[in-house]
């Protein structure tokens, strides 16, 4: 039996060691990245049995030391990252990216940073993990080619700006409580400006990093310019890292009254993101830009659900389902879009055509991915919307149910621009295009997530335990 100390340490030791090895031995780097990504997915699968574990790194308990905590909120995000990294690495788009010099080491460093972030229980440690994630993500974005340079640089500046706001907020938390552990900050029972100021600063920083409206301006260019496999990770899980920290702070470091007071702001931010993202998706002319704007819209579900999460574990559960469903579906669609682009030789939305029957898995991935993004039953997106509508209605906000249905229609309408390409003749065929099994696997997972309701509820209950 592996101890929780060893298993949780392995979450960052394994990919970080892989990254250093990939950097030192470039010739073995791509194979190393694929192998370690799959080993990490297996490790995360095994960690399901350890949900509830908490360890003190170096044997020093908080407030002096840093704690890692694997709870019901952390595990779904670890699983999302694990699945995305494994399937994206195996996909043709992933192998193309990993063949570039340095990409494999960045890939594994990004995985190490994400794993470390999802299990961190310490506000300052989270800052460092956010730095690891941002730097690796920016460098991976820049590997997209000459056109990716400017968007990557803007991403870097926005991300660093977000870090500074976040760090200032953490410093204020420490000044007011003498603690950096998120649980201890929450237990200090702050109120008034001593609570509002650090919460506002950290929230501002994290919204910048997540690309949540109105701070979404940097996201579509960066996600559209990156290499397809990198886009799958960026949209699928990297933006979720900042949102995850946001959920952590508002549910663990702040009392429910504070979240209740801020709820209207979060709801407005969420609705604004849905609108802005949809508008951008309607106007996009390139396939990847459409998908990237859809990410702007889908990110909006996080603040929207947070706006109903005060004292409502059900809304947090909905939020987790949204993030997981969007992550898997978006990973699938970005990978499938690469197949579609290779088969067509271009990615102009108006003239994309059916890639032929050989690319059946790719077409299936797009179809299932759109189902999950719209939130049609039985997909993970449907589970998320149903759960959120339930949580909101229980709080008297009956308008959420029709609104979520309307958002599904909106998503369907702009995603139709992509789906219509699949039925548009004449068919073209390209022997080089990947068939898209990895994308299909992720899309199937996004739909199958719809059956994970009981599992998510059980995980959330595990989270509630001390």
């Amino acid at each position, binding site marked *: 039996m592996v101890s929780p100390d060893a298993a949780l340490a392995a979450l960052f030791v394994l990919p970080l060691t892989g990254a250093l090895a990939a950097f030192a031995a470039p010739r073995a780097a791509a194979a190393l990245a694929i192998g370690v990504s799959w080993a990490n997915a297996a490790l995360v699968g095994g960690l399901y049995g350890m949900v509830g574990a908490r360890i003190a790194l170096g044997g020093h308990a908080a407030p*002096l030391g840093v704690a890692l905590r694997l709870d019901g909120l952390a595990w779904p995000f670890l699983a999302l990252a694990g699945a995305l990294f494994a399937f994206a690495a195996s996909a043709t788009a992933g192998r193309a990216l990993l063949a570039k010099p340095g990409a494999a*080491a960045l890939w594994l460093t990004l995985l190490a940073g994400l794993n470390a972030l999802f299990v961190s229980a310490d506000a300052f440690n989270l800052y460092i993990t956010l730095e*690891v994630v941002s730097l*690796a993500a920016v460098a991976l974005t820049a590997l997209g*080619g000459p056109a990716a340079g400017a968007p990557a640089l803007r991403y870097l500046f926005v991300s660093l700006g977000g870090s500074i706001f976040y760090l200032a907020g953490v410093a204020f938390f420490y000044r007011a409580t003498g603690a950096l552990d998120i649980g201890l900050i929450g237990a*200090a029972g702050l109120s008034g400006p001593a609570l509002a100021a650090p919460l506002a600063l950290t929230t501002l920083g994290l919204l910048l990093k997540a690309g949540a409206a109105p701070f979404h301006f940097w996201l579509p260019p960066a996600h559209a310019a990156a290499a397809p496999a990198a886009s799958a990770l960026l949209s699928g899980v990297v933006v979720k890292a900042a949102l995850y920290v946001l959920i952590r702070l508002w549910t663990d470091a702040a009392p429910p009254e504070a979240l209740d007071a801020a709820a209207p702001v979060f709801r407005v931010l969420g609705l604004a993101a849905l609108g802005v993202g949809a508008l951008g998706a309607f106007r996009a002319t390139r396939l990847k830009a459409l998908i990237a704007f859809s990410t702007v819209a889908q990110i909006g579900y996080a603040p929207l659900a947070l706006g109903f999460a005060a004292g409502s574990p059900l809304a947090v559960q909905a939020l987790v389902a949204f993030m997981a469903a969007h992550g898997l579906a978006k990973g699938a669609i970005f990978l499938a879009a690469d197949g579609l682009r290779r088969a067509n030789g271009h990615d102009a939305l108006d003239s994309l055509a059916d890639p032929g029957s050989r690319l059946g898995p790719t077409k299936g991935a797009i179809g299932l991915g759109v189902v999950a993004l719209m939130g049609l039953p039985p997909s993970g997106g449907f589970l998320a919307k149903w759960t959120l509508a339930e949580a909101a209605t229980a709080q008297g906000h009956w308008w959420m149910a029709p609104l979520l249905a309307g958002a599904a229609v909106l998503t369907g309408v702009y995603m139709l621009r992509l789906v219509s390409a699949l039925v548009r003749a004449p068919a073209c065929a390209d022997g080089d295009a990947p068939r898209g099994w990895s994308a299909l696997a992720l899309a199937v997972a996004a739909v199958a997530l719809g059956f994970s309701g009981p599992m998510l509820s059980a995980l959330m209950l595990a989270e509630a335990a001390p």
Partner: protein
Amino acid sequence: MAAAFLGGFIALACLALFAAVLVAPAAPGLEAAVAAALPETGVTNPVTGVLLDFRGYDTLLEVAVIALAVIGAAALAPRETPPAPLAGPVATAAAAVLAPAIVLFSGYLLWTGGARPGGAFQAGALLAGGLVLLEITGSRPWWRRGLSGRLGAAAGTAAFLIAGLGVMAATGRFLDYPGPDWGYAVILAIEAVAAVSVAVALSALFAAEPGDGRPGEGAP
């Protein structure tokens, strides 16, 4: 225009927030708790105790961020183009005099970190200055390039990981040093490797330049 207004609004809001927090009472920090637990660590400088023992995991990730910067720079600029050397007699003589002194002082900073201000980052930064000096006078050491350069930049993180796993064999917990004597030895070993590694990494960042047509060029 709208962006300027938004920026101005955010700046004003931040100033108000800072003011609001600074007039509020501050909680006692962790100085007393650090002082009480310091004897376990084997070092007498509380900053080193926090960075290398209590929050050693944070420092591991910080060292990894430095390695990550080099990994990213190497990915975007695979071929280093060293600047044209300053080969004049003044520069060469200055490098010949300064380089040994810099090595000596960075060794001192590393050693003294256990008891007084100093440590791996300071020693590494100073040493990096020395390497940059060699770089611009055209006498870059051979081990700064190629495999040994990459191993050097990765060594700090690797040493931290190896030390963390090594003590795990004894205590069962990652980075949990067994007792003050071992703790001091492990901390000094990590710091020594990290100092050299930070120096190699920072000087590699100095030399990294994107070549023609590489990503990273053409940014506004």
